[in-house]
């Protein structure tokens, strides 16, 4: 990605001078004040304790992390890793016993043997872990809530991608004059505050709200839908809020798409499906990955939509952290939860980045 600076002596000597640094100062100051410093404060707090009214006591303690990683987790982790390994072994044996199997499956799914094993074993491990986590009696709400949050974010990301891709493609391929007008339509919701737009969904979804009144008076349904407040409403609100963040980066990639490549694919005999899956998707991949990151990561930590549309029934990890800073008055524990979440994101982000660079 980055150009090799040593190959070009002219660029190699171009280091930022004093003026360059001066121009950078606002950015660096911003980064320090709003990213580095708060993270450090959070890190320090996560090792502190609280007194009985909720003030932070600065004594070193690992209690907050112990509260998160209860011993049962290690058993669950071992169990699900074992399940994944068993499935992987079984598949590997299958491929070994029947050479032709991997070719058949490659034709069917377009995935190599290794990718298939990783996918199926990963899914098996995940299912095993999920079952154990939901069966936990008490004290395990961190992992359970994390699961609920990640699943919600993942499903919403998939829906956003499925809905957003055609929209972005259409936008990117529209004539230049129409393109800007259509883009405006995607941007207009941003003119209204996100919370207000979320509250608007109450008016639409509640039992005596716009949607039900309309459907009832049009005699499409007999009984009103009971979706406010509920998890379904949270899904609707989340997809609605994050959809533009999926459309915009994909649109960026589609706009740059070289039409001659698609024509070449058709000329060489590819049907529309083949042209789409082998040419268009790989070429717009950077946009898709950016969209997924922009939707998934904020959606995992999201809590406001859940508060407004979910009736505060099922807590998400964002709500759990929010609670620590408000009603539970346990800032150190909240900070520890935040640190764990930050680490998870960092790991996921760097894995994605490395994979993208390989591609």
């Amino acid at each position: 990605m980055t150009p090799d600076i040593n190959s070009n002596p002219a660029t190699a000597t171009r280091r930022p001078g004093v003026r360059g640094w001066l121009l950078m100062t606002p950015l660096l100051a911003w980064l320090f004040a709003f990213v580095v410093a708060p993270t450090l404060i959070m890190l320090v707090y996560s090792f502190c304790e609280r007194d009985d009214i909720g003030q932070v006591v600065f004594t070193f303690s690992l209690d907050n992390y112990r509260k998160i990683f209860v011993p049962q987790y290690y058993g669950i982790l071992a169990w699900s890793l074992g399940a994944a390994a068993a499935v992987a072994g079984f598949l590997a044996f299958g491929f070994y016993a029947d050479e032709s199997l991997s070719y058949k499956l490659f034709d069917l799914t377009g995935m190599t043997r290794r990718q298939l094993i990783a996918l199926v074993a990963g899914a098996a491990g995940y299912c095993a872990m999920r079952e154990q986590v939901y069966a936990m009696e008490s004290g395990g709400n961190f992992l359970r809530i994390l699961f609920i949050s990640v699943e919600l974010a993942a499903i919403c990301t998939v829906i956003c991608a499925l809905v957003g891709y055609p929209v972005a493609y259409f936008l990117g391929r529209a004539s230049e004059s129409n393109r800007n007008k259509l883009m405006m339509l995607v941007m207009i919701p941003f003119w209204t505050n996100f919370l207000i737009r979320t509250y608007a969904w109450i008016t639409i979804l509640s039992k005596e709200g716009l949607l039900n009144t309309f459907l009832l008076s049009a005699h499409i349904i007999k009984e009103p839908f009971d979706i406010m407040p509920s998890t379904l409403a949270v899904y609707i609100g989340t997809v609605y809020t994050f959809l533009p963040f999926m459309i915009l980066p994909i649109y960026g990639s589609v706009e740059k798409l070289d039409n001659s490549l698609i024509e070449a694919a058709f000329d060489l005999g590819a049907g529309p499906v083949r042209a789409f899956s082998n040419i268009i998707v790989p070429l717009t991949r950077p946009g898709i990955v950016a969209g997924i990151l922009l939707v998934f990561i904020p959606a995992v930590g999201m809590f406001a939509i859940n508060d407004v549309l979910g009736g505060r029934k099922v807590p998400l990890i964002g709500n759990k952290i929010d609670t620590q800073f408000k009603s539970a008055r346990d800032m150190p524990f909240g900070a520890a939860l935040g640190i764990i979440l930050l680490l998870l994101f960092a790991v996921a982000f760097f894995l994605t980045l490395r994979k993208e660079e390989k591609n």
Partner: protein
Amino acid sequence: MKFRHAFAFAIAVVASLVLASLARADDKELNLFAWSEYVPQSVIDGFTKETGIKVNYEKYASNEEMLSKLLAQPGQYDLVQPSEYTIEALVKKDLLAPLDKSKLSNLKNLAPEFTKLGHDPEGKYSVPWMSGTVGIVVNTEKVKDEITGYKDVFQPKFANNIVALDDARELVSWVMDVKGIPVNEVNEKNLAAVKPMLGQWMKLIKVYDSDSPKTHFLNGDVVIGVVWSGEAALLYKQDKKFKYVLPAEGTHQFIDSLAIPKGAPHLDNAHQFINYILRPEVSKLVSEEFPYTNPNAEARKLLTPEQLGNPASFPTGSPKMEIFHDIGKSASAIDELVTDLKSQK
């Protein structure tokens, strides 16, 4: 030239921002940190008009939320509005400033039963704002059964039709009332005893809301629920079909008071505000908008018979009532229990 204009403009913006922040430091301000849906705008406007003091009204939805913000920003707020058990905790930690009663000439208007309260026996730190109860609201149009207590509310037939306060301590105390456990004896054993029933109840609840539970009744999303009495009174005022019932198993009475945190930047303005709301005609405005039980005896005389007859504002009979006390660190055990149950399927 263009650059110079832009530069001059930028200087002007910065200068006005600096001036604005300096103006903020002026003494004509009051930072009020109070419950949401509790202080009428008309009272704030009236106070500003008379004294020229600008009121910054920041809101919270639970005592715990207020405490955490108050502790995180000492020297920020001039007036807070804690309930009795939170006043107890604040006094214990020496976080409240004693009131200067010479500046509170209207204290005499308070009803005698509100002047010597358990959490502040000499009235040294707090002045009662409103008092109320927690009880059951029934939409009698949709629910025909006789509802007398919590047990009648949390029945499977009302599943997904119930609203409850989003307050861990409240939820736990209702089960304690049913089981006959004193609500202030929060310990591991009692929480374990509460857990199974609470878990069953929580599966039936459709929505948790402490800010404005009445909205869900008005939207038709629920037919029954356990809410603050003031919310119930507003519903009754709007439509007589919303009946308020004090649970037979027992409930608790809360007393929310105004208090001044230590290190408040505008001590004098805070006293002025307290004295202002103690005036009968001002206190009446509060009662009109948020019809809880008014502790101001002179203000009660100004209320209409209809307002006084609202059973949610002024309950009759002698229900079994308790008052919450500070439970220290056990509060987080309650919170953990409720989060646990909420995340279970």
